[in-house]
């Protein structure tokens, strides 16, 4: 394998690691307002945080099993859709998480 490929793979791994935490925060923040998977994905992409469906749906399920989200099936446009929103526990956790992110962000800005 060439050094270029190695560097690219390393960058990809680091980028994914960096994105993982931010995506959770973005999803939680977006779900302060109820949405279903497809619109959530589109909104995130429009906001510059594209996420593929293979990552989003398992993430939503994980957050729901952790009690941070609640969901319900409802009909919209003649089709059943699963709507997600932040639970009370999710709301309680989102606040300090955002504060933590802002603190990390300002520290990083200082370092860089």
């Amino acid at each position: 394998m060439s050094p270029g490929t190695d560097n690219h793979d390393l960058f990809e791994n680091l980028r994914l690691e960096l994105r993982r935490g931010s995506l959770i925060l973005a999803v939680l923040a977006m779900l302060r307002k109820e949405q279903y998977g497809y619109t959530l994905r589109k909104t995130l992409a429009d906001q510059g945080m594209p996420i593929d469906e293979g990552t989003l749906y398992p993430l939503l399920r994980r957050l729901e099993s952790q009690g941070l989200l609640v969901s319900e099936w409802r009909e919209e446009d003649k089709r059943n859709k699963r709507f997600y929103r932040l639970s009370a526990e999710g709301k309680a956790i989102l606040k300090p998480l955002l504060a933590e992110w802002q603190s990390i962000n300002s520290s990083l800005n200082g370092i860089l």
Partner: protein
Amino acid sequence: MELLESYLRAVKRYLPRAQSADIIRELSDELRSQLEEKESALGRPMTDEEVTALLRQHGDPMTVARRYRQDSPSLTIGWELIGPELFPMYLIMLSVNLVITVACVAIVFLIMHAPIKLEAFVFPVLIQIIVLTLVFIGLNLVRRKYPQPWYYPPAELSPMIPIPRGYSIAGLILWGPVLLWWLALPHFPSLILGSAAAHLKLAPTWHNFYVPILLILLASISQRVISLFHPNWTWLVPFMRMIINATGALVLYFLVFKSHTLVVVADAFQGATQYEKLAESVNGTLLWGVLGPWLWIWAGISAPIYAWYCRPHLRKLLRGKRGGEGASVS
């Protein structure tokens, strides 16, 4: 929507059973929304090729399901040997193999009118566990290195997914030596008889089966060579393998159940009781072991599976023919 349904069924196969219906319902809504959005942008219904491209982009069914199975059981000793998406299939295959193995060993004892001993089961069962585990560890390694291989696409999607070259090469690596072994057998009977070749010889019945089995092996190798150079000839695999397996099952039926003597005592040792017994034992091993019912069952099961995979190709062919007729009428 037939392609989408088929894709969803394939994903469902690898999902944790308790959540599968719910996950599929949501995945179905997501993919339908994507299809509708594309169709409205195109201003026309999507073609089968376009739908397949979208589904391929979404991911191989096993890989898609894996993302939902992060906490499911797997075989891990320090590092992952068999991943969570393959593990349920491994357990099913292992159970089926062990049941067949135990049944075959018991049948051999019954046929030989010998008392059934527990020790006799230990070696075949251990071999099955070791071989199957190694096969799945290999599959797991391939899946980690090439995470989107689409090795076993659902039947409806298979006409549009090229045969992976690695799949054809693996088949050649496996069946090439078998063909060479078979070609060498008439000249070197010890390759199948071992040390008994000094006292035994292949019976005339053997020669009746030699050419049909040789042709089956040659057809199998040819299919893989053609698929290697023409991976887009997706119809070739199900059609040829259906014929190969159906013929194989027929030949093996006559070989295993209708012929009883594949080897006889060599002319120089005719009449010696010990060699008569040796011939009987070798015949039993060949008919119930090497070329035994397991191979017949395998071919018998594979033929209808490949026939099932022929359906979408036939449907496409008929649709094309009707389209052609329609075009000529207009």
